[in-house]
């Protein structure tokens, strides 16, 4: 059943043909308001709904900020990027092989601990990540207070609080994104450490795999995945570094449905 989801790279190659200065991925747990952020930024009308799994079709949209055209890709919500499901694979492949200029991770301010799990997994893949802490209005209502400067310091990536439905914080989000993408703001994301045994094994694999990746993919992350026995990644990597995609990706191109469609 994975066939319908293998379109990620194809989608990207399509995106690059469009007149766009940067492609940005919107990732996050289900139901955190990704589509709402997407709508708020692009002015499009992706359907939203308060249940996990509302968005199942990749959608893209543009907006202009400071004379740059930004393309946003609304990814399906996932709990992790460890590729347990087709959705997670789509999100992972897009962030990893789709070369988005940056990835916005949208998290739920009322459930930060669980959501941060995905954030850590994203910054493990790419340093160009921005954290959008959404639903701050709900957090406020529930008496949850978040120390944003501290969060930013701990994670080492820009953190923007938003209430996307009321368009609160979206201007700051655009500006933050602009700085990361076009002003090459240096980010130093938190480096995630594992137990000694794992670190030792990873270091060895990383050394050997390095030459194959030619600097295109984060070698530590690949080493971690291989140690984890993630076989879904192997063919993707081979294709990515050789720069070709199998024909099967053709099929997936309809994945990128026009946003105007019903659902």
């Amino acid at each position, binding site marked *: 059943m994975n066939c319908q989801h293998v379109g990620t790279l194809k989608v990207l190659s399509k995106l690059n043909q469009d007149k766009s200065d940067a492609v940005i991925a919107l990732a996050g747990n289900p139901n955190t308001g990704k589509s709402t952020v997407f709508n708020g930024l692009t002015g499009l009308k992706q359907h939203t709904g308060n249940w996990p799994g509302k968005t199942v079709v990749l959608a893209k949209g543009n907006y202009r900020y400071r004379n740059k055209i930004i393309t946003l890709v609304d990814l399906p919500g996932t*709990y992790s990027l460890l590729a347990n499901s087709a959705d997670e694979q789509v999100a992972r492949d897009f962030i990893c092989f789709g070369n988005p200029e940056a990835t916005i991770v949208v998290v739920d301010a009322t459930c930060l601990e669980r959501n941060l*799990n995905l954030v850590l997994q994203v910054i493990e893949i790419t340093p160009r990540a921005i954290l959008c802490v959404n639903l701050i209005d709900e957090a406020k209502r529930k008496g949850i207070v978040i120390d944003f400067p501290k969060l930013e310091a701990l994670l080492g990536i820009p953190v923007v609080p938003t209430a996307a439905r009321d368009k609160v914080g979206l201007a700051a989000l655009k500006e933050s994104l602009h700085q990361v993408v076009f002003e090459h703001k240096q980010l130093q994301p938190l480096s995630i450490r594992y137990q000694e045994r794992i670190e030792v094994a990873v270091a060895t694999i990383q050394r050997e795999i390095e030459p194959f990746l030619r600097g295109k993919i984060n070698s530590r992350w690949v080493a971690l995945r291989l140690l984890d026995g993630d076989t879904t990644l192997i063919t993707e990597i081979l294709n990515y570094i050789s720069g070709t995609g199998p024909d099967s990706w053709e099929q997936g191109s309809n994945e990128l449905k026009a946003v105007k469609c019903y659902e």
Partner: protein
Amino acid sequence: MGYAEITLTALPIGQQARVVNVGMQGLTRNRLLDLGLVPSSLVKAVRKSPGGDPVAYKVRGAIIALRSEESRLITVWPLD
């Protein structure tokens, strides 16, 4: 106190517990791990559905419903 390990299914509503073991393999296991149900994390049984199954648990701030097929394979250590 005098509690012993029980399965998550046996955890009474309203009670908290610490996860001891997630006793299944493969995809199901990974799924639960990703939701934050890892050994040593806190869970609380929140409510039963009208038919008694599934049961909703609070895990790391989120409410997650599990069927008894899954919850009976998870062992926990009840807390007061």
